[in-house]
């Protein structure tokens, strides 16, 4: 039998490398699943705090998604449509939380909005103390997750054909009407995909939360914090919570992908 050709060697090498890396990504998740099934992780004692953590995660990430939508959409639109000096810098600033280590983000939030932080005293005079509150969890989540949405929304807005907008303007549509009836529907899918991704990131947020908001069951202990705290005492509870998070993340990613599949095309 003749030796495989150079072309086949290339294919083999590529497949081997890809498989190796897929194993790296896939094996830990499979192991989590296997261990959970093995030790019947779902038969958990209810006092390990899982229910409160799930509830808290749902509530805080909902608020975060709302806040992100409210405050992120205008910024994304500005970045998509306007040009102004230092725009590059603004874009980098928006991207920064994505690359910043979450613990550093938490530290920065503490130093800025903590009781003794730069803006602590002004906030306190308004009656607001953030650390150790559920609000702080939302702030931390928004800080790290909003950039995902803003980035996607900006791309979505940029994808709306300017000609369509101009045509609508000719017909007399102004500002908000234009946005509501033309831009938004056309970029809807990209926005939704971005929001789902941002929400999933918020759900998984740990470092900033634990430093800025602290960890207390029912008030600031979201699911990732629970996993971290509980795995020393009750590893099965940690695995179960971890699995739930993996499942939710998986669902979020699939949803985001499905939403994104048509957003590149102008409909």
């Amino acid at each position, binding site marked *: 039998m003749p030796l495989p050709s*150079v072309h086949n*060697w290339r294919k083999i*090498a590529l497949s081997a490398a890809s498989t190796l890396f897929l194993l790296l990504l896939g094996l830990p998740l499979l192991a989590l699943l296997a261990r959970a099934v093995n030790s019947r992780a779902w038969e958990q004692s209810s006092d390990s705090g899982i229910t409160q953590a799930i509830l808290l995660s749902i509530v805080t990430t909902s608020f975060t998604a709302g806040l992100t939508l409210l405050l992120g959409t205008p910024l994304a639109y500005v970045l998509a449509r306007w040009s102004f000096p230092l725009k590059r810098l603004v874009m980098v600033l928006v991207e920064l939380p994505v690359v910043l280590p979450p613990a550093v983000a938490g530290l920065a939030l*503490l130093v800025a909005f*903590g*009781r*003794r932080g730069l803006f602590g005293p002004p906030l306190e005079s308004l009656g607001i103390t953030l*650390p*150790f509150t559920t609000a702080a969890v939302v702030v931390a989540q928004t800080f790290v997750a909003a950039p995902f949405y803003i980035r996607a929304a900006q791309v979505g807005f940029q994808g709306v054909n300017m000609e369509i907008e101009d045509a609508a303007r000719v017909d007399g549509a102004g500002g908000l009407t234009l946005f509501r009836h033309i831009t938004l529907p056309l970029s809807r899918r990209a926005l939704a995909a971005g929001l789902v991704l941002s929400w999933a990131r918020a759900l998984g947020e740990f470092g900033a939360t*634990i430093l800025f908001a*602290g*960890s*207390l*069951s029912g*008030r*600031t202990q979201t699911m990732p914090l629970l996993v*971290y*705290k509980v*795995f*020393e*005492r009750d*590893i099965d509870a940690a695995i179960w919570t971890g699995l739930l998070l993996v499942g939710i993340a998986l669902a979020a990613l699939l949803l985001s992908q499905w939403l994104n599949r048509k957003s590149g095309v102008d409909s």
Partner: protein
Amino acid sequence: MKPRFVVACLLIIAVLSIGLWPAAAQESQTLTIFAAASLTDAFTEISDAFIADHPGVEIVFNFGGSSSLATQLVEGGAPADLFASANARQMTVAQEGERIAGKPMTFVKNRLVLIVPADNPAAIQSLRDLANGGVKLVVAAEGVPVRDYTNTLLEGLAADPAYGEGYRTAVIANIVSEEENVRQVSAKVALGEADAGIVYRSDVTPDINDQVIALPIPDRLNTIATYPIAITNDSANPELAQQFIDYLLSDIGQDTLVEWNFISVRIPELPSTISLLDDGMVHINGQLLNPFTLTVEDLRANYAPQTLDVTYMSGEDTVSTTFTGVLLWDIISAAQPNLNADVRNDKLSTFIVATGSDGYQAVIAWGEIDPEFGNQPILVAFEEAGSPIAEESGGAIQLVIPGDARGGRYVSGLVDLSLRDAPPVAK
């Protein structure tokens, strides 16, 4: 083809070397020590001195909450030579996870302290203020040793009539965050984010000294933490590890730990005679961490006196009377006996020598007054039949042993209570 072949070979060599690297590292004299976070400063200083004494040795530390370290050892199989835990429970976790060889040794003790930020935003003056509404209290998470000790402290306070269960409930309601290790607790307080935190006395280190105020917890209420250390069963350098343990237990190690505000496990030599001081006070001393003196006023104010009817024979006469006093058990507990944590029931080989102003002595065994054993209500009394004990009988304070048939041990004019240990077994 050839370059690809070379690349493939290099890759294989690289992967294999990664596998062999840890083995290579173990050949050199490196000690990997997993130690409780509270030991950070003391152990760093001790290891520097150890390395100076043992050239060619390297020490690598992994400091963290002991529960976290135990999990890394058991679940993660992390390579280590020594494990120094802040309590026996996490050491047991490691032992049950089959990572520990032999018997752990207690090498240092510690006590808890209440810390508040330097500007004391919640105006906390004492333990009692922790129950005030709105206090932001930060403690360690369940499972972290300092939290176990804190829970014990709160349990003790709940049982104390001066504080009560309501106090404990209020304090627990004030917890705003449960941190992963004790240093994160002290960090939150030093940053001023928390109003108060409960940490070890040794955690008030020079670098946070000017950012926090340490409010001592009354010794009679405080918990004593005991730290065990053990060699792992797969250590590459067990002899070196044992040398490190010996170094910790030596005077240099213990002195360094004491400098960092830990409590030494050394049990000092006690004087071979009891000195009688004519100062009108009862001297509580001996094998204790917290010797002190007592007056009648102290007994009335700081303890919970009780009144008991007693009947005893004195000579040919039967005496029936009533005494009011404080349990000897409460007084000895407040003095915090200095026991050897590695000896089973070390307390049961100790005894209290009661000495009167005239030199008369009687001995009470620990087992007589320990609630888990004899539980005898032996009193240090200051009132008889409702009125203060007469000075003419020798002094204002008297020892009362309700269970004794004869009154021989009713030492009057009590001036000294000394906790002593039975002679050790010859090696």
